[in-house]
Protein backbone atom coordinates (compact mmCIF):
# COMPACT_ATOMS: atom_id res chain seq x y z
CA UNK A 1 0.00 0.00 0.00
CA UNK A 2 1.16 3.48 -0.78
CA UNK A 3 2.27 5.62 2.06
CA UNK A 4 0.09 8.49 3.14
CA UNK A 5 1.43 11.74 1.76
CA UNK A 6 1.60 14.91 3.78
CA UNK A 7 2.77 18.17 2.28
CA UNK A 8 4.32 20.84 4.44
CA UNK A 9 4.31 24.37 3.13
CA UNK A 10 6.58 26.44 5.25
CA UNK A 11 8.52 29.57 5.71
CA UNK A 12 12.13 29.06 4.72
CA UNK A 13 13.33 30.50 7.95
CA UNK A 14 11.34 28.65 10.50
CA UNK A 15 13.37 25.49 10.40
CA UNK A 16 16.17 23.56 8.85
CA UNK A 17 14.38 20.27 8.89
CA UNK A 18 15.55 17.63 6.47
CA UNK A 19 14.15 14.28 5.42
CA UNK A 20 15.95 12.57 8.28
CA UNK A 21 13.99 14.60 10.78
CA UNK A 22 10.79 13.05 9.53
CA UNK A 23 12.17 9.53 9.32
CA UNK A 24 10.06 8.47 12.31
CA UNK A 25 6.79 9.35 10.69
CA UNK A 26 5.45 6.53 8.55
CA UNK A 27 4.30 8.82 5.82
CA UNK A 28 5.69 10.41 2.72
CA UNK A 29 6.57 13.92 3.77
CA UNK A 30 6.95 16.57 1.12
CA UNK A 31 8.48 19.82 2.25
CA UNK A 32 7.97 22.96 0.18
CA UNK A 33 9.76 26.06 1.34
CA UNK A 34 8.71 29.62 0.67
CA UNK A 35 10.60 32.84 1.29
CA UNK A 36 7.95 33.61 3.90
CA UNK A 37 4.79 31.81 4.90
CA UNK A 38 2.94 34.96 3.82
CA UNK A 39 3.79 33.94 0.29
CA UNK A 40 1.83 30.71 0.55
CA UNK A 41 -1.35 31.05 -1.46
CA UNK A 42 -4.64 29.26 -1.15
CA UNK A 43 -3.94 27.73 -4.51
CA UNK A 44 -0.67 26.24 -3.26
CA UNK A 45 -2.61 24.43 -0.58
CA UNK A 46 -5.23 23.20 -3.03
CA UNK A 47 -2.60 22.10 -5.50
CA UNK A 48 -0.78 20.15 -2.84
CA UNK A 49 -4.00 18.24 -2.19
CA UNK A 50 -4.55 17.84 -5.89
CA UNK A 51 -1.09 16.37 -6.24
CA UNK A 52 -1.87 13.61 -3.84
CA UNK A 53 -1.27 14.99 -0.40
CA UNK A 54 -3.90 13.78 2.03
CA UNK A 55 -3.15 16.54 4.46
CA UNK A 56 -1.39 19.85 4.22
CA UNK A 57 0.43 21.58 7.04
CA UNK A 58 1.26 25.23 6.72
CA UNK A 59 4.06 26.32 9.03
CA UNK A 60 4.89 29.91 9.80
CA UNK A 61 6.74 31.81 12.47
CA UNK A 62 5.24 32.33 15.88
CA UNK A 63 3.20 35.45 16.34
CA UNK A 64 5.43 38.49 16.45
CA UNK A 65 8.51 36.74 15.18
CA UNK A 66 7.75 36.75 11.49
CA UNK A 67 10.49 38.67 9.85
CA UNK A 68 7.96 40.23 7.54
CA UNK A 69 5.86 41.03 10.57
CA UNK A 70 2.57 39.56 9.45
CA UNK A 71 3.55 36.79 7.07
CA UNK A 72 2.39 33.97 9.29
CA UNK A 73 -0.87 35.67 10.22
CA UNK A 74 -1.57 36.06 6.52
CA UNK A 75 -0.77 32.41 6.06
CA UNK A 76 -3.27 31.57 8.76
CA UNK A 77 -5.97 33.47 6.91
CA UNK A 78 -5.11 31.65 3.71
CA UNK A 79 -5.49 28.39 5.57
CA UNK A 80 -8.92 29.48 6.75
CA UNK A 81 -9.99 30.30 3.21
CA UNK A 82 -8.62 27.00 1.93
CA UNK A 83 -10.62 25.24 4.61
CA UNK A 84 -13.78 27.02 3.56
CA UNK A 85 -13.21 25.91 0.01
CA UNK A 86 -12.69 22.34 1.12
CA UNK A 87 -15.96 22.43 3.04
CA UNK A 88 -17.66 23.73 -0.07
CA UNK A 89 -16.50 20.75 -2.05
CA UNK A 90 -17.29 18.26 0.70
CA UNK A 91 -13.76 17.62 1.86
CA UNK A 92 -12.79 17.58 5.50
CA UNK A 93 -11.40 21.04 6.23
CA UNK A 94 -9.30 19.53 8.99
CA UNK A 95 -7.04 18.16 6.32
CA UNK A 96 -5.42 21.55 6.15
CA UNK A 97 -3.70 22.75 9.28
CA UNK A 98 -1.71 25.72 10.39
CA UNK A 99 1.10 25.65 12.88
CA UNK A 100 3.23 28.39 14.33
CA UNK A 101 6.70 27.26 15.15
CA UNK A 102 9.68 28.99 16.73
CA UNK A 103 12.26 30.16 14.28
CA UNK A 104 15.15 27.89 13.49
CA UNK A 105 13.64 25.13 15.55
CA UNK A 106 13.05 22.00 13.55
CA UNK A 107 11.80 20.06 16.56
CA UNK A 108 8.59 21.98 16.84
CA UNK A 109 7.91 21.51 13.19
CA UNK A 110 8.49 17.80 13.38
CA UNK A 111 6.09 17.62 16.32
CA UNK A 112 3.47 19.51 14.33
CA UNK A 113 3.87 17.17 11.40
CA UNK A 114 3.39 14.20 13.70
CA UNK A 115 0.26 15.76 15.07
CA UNK A 116 -1.02 16.39 11.56
CA UNK A 117 -0.32 12.80 10.68
CA UNK A 118 -2.18 11.49 13.70
CA UNK A 119 -5.09 13.79 13.04
CA UNK A 120 -5.24 12.53 9.50
CA UNK A 121 -5.32 8.96 10.73
CA UNK A 122 -8.26 9.81 12.95
CA UNK A 123 -10.06 11.51 10.08
CA UNK A 124 -9.50 8.48 7.91
CA UNK A 125 -10.71 6.15 10.61
CA UNK A 126 -13.85 8.15 11.15
CA UNK A 127 -14.59 8.21 7.45
Amino acid at each position, binding site marked *: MDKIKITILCCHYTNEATEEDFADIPAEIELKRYPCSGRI*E*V*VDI*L*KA*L*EQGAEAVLVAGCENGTCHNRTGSTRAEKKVELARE*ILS*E*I*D*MDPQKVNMTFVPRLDSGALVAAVKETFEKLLRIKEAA
Partner: protein
Amino acid sequence: MIVAERKPIKQILEMIEPYSKVAVIGCRGCVAICSAGGDREVEILSAALRLARKNNGKPLETIEKTLVRQCDPEYLTPLAKLKDQVEAAISLACGVGVNLASDLYPDIKIYPGVNTTFYGANPALGKWEEMCRGCGDCILDLTGGICPIARCAKNLLNGPCGGSQNSRCEIDPDTPCVWQLIYDRLKARGELEKLAKIWAPKNWIPAGYGGPRKRERPDLEINNKSKHSGGVK
Protein backbone atom coordinates in the same frame (compact mmCIF):
# COMPACT_ATOMS: atom_id res chain seq x y z
CA MET B 1 -16.02 49.44 -9.62
CA ILE B 2 -18.44 46.65 -10.34
CA VAL B 3 -18.34 44.37 -7.33
CA ALA B 4 -18.88 40.66 -7.70
CA GLU B 5 -18.60 37.60 -5.56
CA ARG B 6 -17.69 34.02 -6.40
CA LYS B 7 -20.62 31.69 -6.85
CA PRO B 8 -20.79 28.69 -4.53
CA ILE B 9 -18.45 26.08 -5.98
CA LYS B 10 -21.21 23.49 -5.94
CA GLN B 11 -23.30 25.64 -8.25
CA ILE B 12 -20.39 25.92 -10.65
CA LEU B 13 -19.77 22.19 -10.43
CA GLU B 14 -23.36 21.58 -11.43
CA MET B 15 -23.03 23.82 -14.48
CA ILE B 16 -19.99 21.99 -15.75
CA GLU B 17 -21.08 18.56 -14.66
CA PRO B 18 -21.17 17.03 -18.17
CA TYR B 19 -17.76 18.33 -19.22
CA SER B 20 -14.28 17.04 -18.72
CA LYS B 21 -12.37 20.03 -19.98
CA VAL B 22 -13.28 23.62 -19.23
CA ALA B 23 -11.63 27.00 -19.33
CA VAL B 24 -11.73 29.33 -16.35
CA ILE B 25 -11.52 32.85 -17.64
CA GLY B 26 -10.76 35.73 -15.34
CA CYS B 27 -10.93 39.42 -15.96
CA ARG B 28 -8.37 41.95 -14.83
CA GLY B 29 -10.96 44.70 -14.60
CA CYS B 30 -13.24 45.41 -11.68
CA VAL B 31 -13.59 41.81 -10.57
CA ALA B 32 -9.84 41.49 -10.18
CA ILE B 33 -9.76 44.59 -8.05
CA CYS B 34 -12.56 43.35 -5.86
CA SER B 35 -10.85 39.97 -5.59
CA ALA B 36 -13.60 37.98 -7.21
CA GLY B 37 -12.33 37.15 -10.67
CA GLY B 38 -8.68 38.06 -11.18
CA ASP B 39 -5.69 35.79 -11.80
CA ARG B 40 -5.59 34.59 -8.25
CA GLU B 41 -9.26 33.68 -8.13
CA VAL B 42 -8.96 31.89 -11.45
CA GLU B 43 -6.19 29.75 -10.01
CA ILE B 44 -8.05 29.01 -6.82
CA LEU B 45 -11.34 28.18 -8.50
CA SER B 46 -9.64 25.98 -11.08
CA ALA B 47 -7.75 24.08 -8.42
CA ALA B 48 -10.89 23.66 -6.31
CA LEU B 49 -12.91 22.40 -9.27
CA ARG B 50 -10.21 19.94 -10.27
CA LEU B 51 -9.89 18.72 -6.72
CA ALA B 52 -13.63 18.26 -6.32
CA ARG B 53 -13.88 16.38 -9.59
CA LYS B 54 -10.86 14.26 -8.75
CA ASN B 55 -12.60 13.26 -5.55
CA ASN B 56 -15.69 12.31 -7.52
CA GLY B 57 -13.69 10.15 -9.85
CA LYS B 58 -14.46 12.35 -12.82
CA PRO B 59 -11.25 14.25 -13.30
CA LEU B 60 -11.48 17.68 -14.84
CA GLU B 61 -8.95 19.46 -16.97
CA THR B 62 -8.83 23.21 -16.83
CA ILE B 63 -7.33 25.94 -18.91
CA GLU B 64 -6.71 29.09 -16.92
CA LYS B 65 -6.70 32.41 -18.58
CA THR B 66 -7.22 35.95 -17.43
CA LEU B 67 -8.10 38.64 -19.93
CA VAL B 68 -7.41 42.32 -19.61
CA ARG B 69 -11.12 42.97 -19.74
CA GLN B 70 -14.15 41.06 -20.84
CA CYS B 71 -16.30 44.05 -21.67
CA ASP B 72 -14.48 45.02 -24.86
CA PRO B 73 -14.61 42.86 -27.96
CA GLU B 74 -10.93 43.22 -28.74
CA TYR B 75 -9.87 41.69 -25.47
CA LEU B 76 -12.11 38.72 -25.96
CA THR B 77 -10.43 37.53 -29.14
CA PRO B 78 -8.46 34.80 -27.33
CA LEU B 79 -11.79 33.05 -26.85
CA ALA B 80 -11.92 32.22 -30.54
CA LYS B 81 -9.22 29.60 -30.03
CA LEU B 82 -10.85 28.15 -26.98
CA LYS B 83 -13.72 26.69 -28.91
CA ASP B 84 -11.74 23.68 -29.97
CA GLN B 85 -9.84 23.29 -26.75
CA VAL B 86 -12.61 23.04 -24.18
CA GLU B 87 -16.20 21.98 -23.89
CA ALA B 88 -17.27 24.96 -21.84
CA ALA B 89 -15.93 28.01 -20.12
CA ILE B 90 -16.55 29.65 -16.77
CA SER B 91 -16.17 33.38 -16.85
CA LEU B 92 -15.25 35.14 -13.64
CA ALA B 93 -16.06 38.50 -15.17
CA CYS B 94 -19.12 40.42 -14.15
CA GLY B 95 -22.35 39.72 -15.99
CA VAL B 96 -21.31 42.16 -18.67
CA GLY B 97 -18.38 39.98 -19.60
CA VAL B 98 -20.44 36.81 -19.69
CA ASN B 99 -23.03 38.48 -21.94
CA LEU B 100 -20.59 40.01 -24.36
CA ALA B 101 -18.44 36.91 -24.58
CA SER B 102 -21.51 34.77 -25.22
CA ASP B 103 -22.76 37.21 -27.85
CA LEU B 104 -19.45 37.28 -29.67
CA TYR B 105 -18.63 33.60 -29.33
CA PRO B 106 -21.99 31.87 -29.33
CA ASP B 107 -20.33 28.52 -30.06
CA ILE B 108 -18.71 28.43 -26.64
CA LYS B 109 -20.86 27.69 -23.64
CA ILE B 110 -19.88 30.34 -21.19
CA TYR B 111 -21.14 30.03 -17.63
CA PRO B 112 -21.00 32.64 -14.90
CA GLY B 113 -18.57 31.95 -12.10
CA VAL B 114 -19.45 34.98 -10.05
CA ASN B 115 -22.56 36.80 -8.93
CA THR B 116 -22.38 40.43 -9.94
CA THR B 117 -23.51 42.34 -6.91
CA PHE B 118 -23.27 46.10 -7.09
CA TYR B 119 -21.32 49.24 -7.95
CA GLY B 120 -19.26 49.84 -4.92
CA ALA B 121 -16.27 51.32 -3.24
CA ASN B 122 -13.57 49.54 -1.32
CA PRO B 123 -13.43 51.61 1.86
CA ALA B 124 -11.15 49.18 3.64
CA LEU B 125 -9.27 46.02 2.76
CA GLY B 126 -11.69 43.15 2.38
CA LYS B 127 -14.77 45.36 2.46
CA TRP B 128 -16.95 46.66 -0.34
CA GLU B 129 -19.97 48.92 -0.05
CA GLU B 130 -22.66 49.90 -2.50
CA MET B 131 -22.41 53.57 -3.41
CA CYS B 132 -24.22 53.96 -6.70
CA ARG B 133 -27.06 52.24 -8.43
CA GLY B 134 -26.53 53.64 -11.90
CA CYS B 135 -29.99 55.23 -11.86
CA GLY B 136 -29.03 57.41 -14.79
CA ASP B 137 -30.04 60.72 -13.26
CA CYS B 138 -27.48 61.79 -10.71
CA ILE B 139 -28.69 63.94 -7.85
CA LEU B 140 -25.58 63.89 -5.71
CA ASP B 141 -25.28 67.64 -6.08
CA LEU B 142 -28.38 68.00 -3.96
CA THR B 143 -27.54 65.46 -1.30
CA GLY B 144 -24.04 66.39 -0.33
CA GLY B 145 -22.53 63.65 -2.45
CA ILE B 146 -24.40 60.86 -0.69
CA CYS B 147 -26.72 58.73 -2.79
CA PRO B 148 -30.14 57.93 -1.28
CA ILE B 149 -31.07 55.75 -4.24
CA ALA B 150 -28.23 53.34 -3.64
CA ARG B 151 -27.79 53.72 0.07
CA CYS B 152 -31.33 54.10 1.47
CA ALA B 153 -33.19 50.82 1.87
CA LYS B 154 -36.35 52.49 0.61
CA ASN B 155 -34.74 54.74 -2.04
CA LEU B 156 -36.36 57.68 -0.28
CA LEU B 157 -36.00 61.03 -1.93
CA ASN B 158 -37.74 62.84 0.91
CA GLY B 159 -36.14 61.07 3.83
CA PRO B 160 -35.39 60.13 6.48
CA CYS B 161 -38.20 57.78 7.32
CA GLY B 162 -39.34 57.05 10.85
CA GLY B 163 -36.91 54.18 11.17
CA SER B 164 -33.84 56.35 11.44
CA GLN B 165 -32.45 55.95 14.91
CA ASN B 166 -29.06 56.94 16.26
CA SER B 167 -27.81 57.38 12.71
CA ARG B 168 -28.61 53.76 11.93
CA CYS B 169 -31.03 52.35 9.41
CA GLU B 170 -33.86 50.27 10.81
CA ILE B 171 -33.16 47.39 8.49
CA ASP B 172 -29.74 46.65 9.91
CA PRO B 173 -27.81 48.11 12.81
CA ASP B 174 -24.62 48.01 10.75
CA THR B 175 -26.08 50.19 8.04
CA PRO B 176 -25.93 53.92 8.53
CA CYS B 177 -29.08 55.93 7.86
CA VAL B 178 -28.06 57.65 4.71
CA TRP B 179 -30.54 60.43 5.25
CA GLN B 180 -28.96 61.19 8.58
CA LEU B 181 -25.63 61.39 6.76
CA ILE B 182 -27.14 63.67 4.15
CA TYR B 183 -28.70 65.82 6.85
CA ASP B 184 -25.43 66.09 8.75
CA ARG B 185 -23.41 66.94 5.70
CA LEU B 186 -25.82 69.55 4.38
CA LYS B 187 -26.05 71.03 7.84
CA ALA B 188 -22.28 71.26 8.07
CA ARG B 189 -22.26 72.98 4.70
CA GLY B 190 -25.05 75.33 5.67
CA GLU B 191 -27.24 73.92 2.91
CA LEU B 192 -30.18 72.55 4.88
CA GLU B 193 -32.55 74.56 2.75
CA LYS B 194 -31.99 71.91 0.08
CA LEU B 195 -34.03 69.55 2.23
CA ALA B 196 -37.01 71.87 2.47
CA LYS B 197 -37.95 71.29 -1.13
CA ILE B 198 -40.34 68.47 -1.90
CA TRP B 199 -38.71 66.12 -4.29
CA ALA B 200 -40.98 65.15 -7.16
CA PRO B 201 -41.42 61.48 -8.02
CA LYS B 202 -38.34 60.18 -9.76
CA ASN B 203 -38.26 59.37 -13.43
CA TRP B 204 -37.11 55.76 -13.44
CA ILE B 205 -36.60 55.48 -17.18
CA PRO B 206 -32.90 56.41 -17.01
CA ALA B 207 -32.57 53.86 -14.23
CA GLY B 208 -33.31 51.11 -16.68
CA TYR B 209 -37.02 50.69 -16.17
CA GLY B 210 -37.53 52.02 -19.65
CA GLY B 211 -35.73 49.03 -21.13
CA PRO B 212 -32.05 48.27 -21.61
CA ARG B 213 -29.95 51.36 -21.62
CA LYS B 214 -27.57 52.46 -24.32
CA ARG B 215 -25.11 55.21 -24.72
CA GLU B 216 -23.91 56.70 -27.94
CA ARG B 217 -21.14 59.07 -28.90
CA PRO B 218 -21.46 59.59 -32.64
CA ASP B 219 -18.18 61.49 -32.73
CA LEU B 220 -16.36 58.36 -31.64
CA GLU B 221 -18.01 56.05 -34.10
CA ILE B 222 -15.66 55.37 -36.93
CA ASN B 223 -18.00 54.61 -39.79
CA ASN B 224 -20.57 57.14 -38.89
CA LYS B 225 -20.30 58.80 -42.28
CA SER B 226 -23.75 60.16 -42.77
CA LYS B 227 -23.63 62.83 -40.15
CA HIS B 228 -20.15 64.03 -40.91
CA SER B 229 -20.18 63.86 -44.64
CA GLY B 230 -19.34 67.52 -44.86
CA GLY B 231 -16.53 67.34 -42.36
CA VAL B 232 -12.85 67.44 -43.02
CA LYS B 233 -11.11 64.09 -42.90
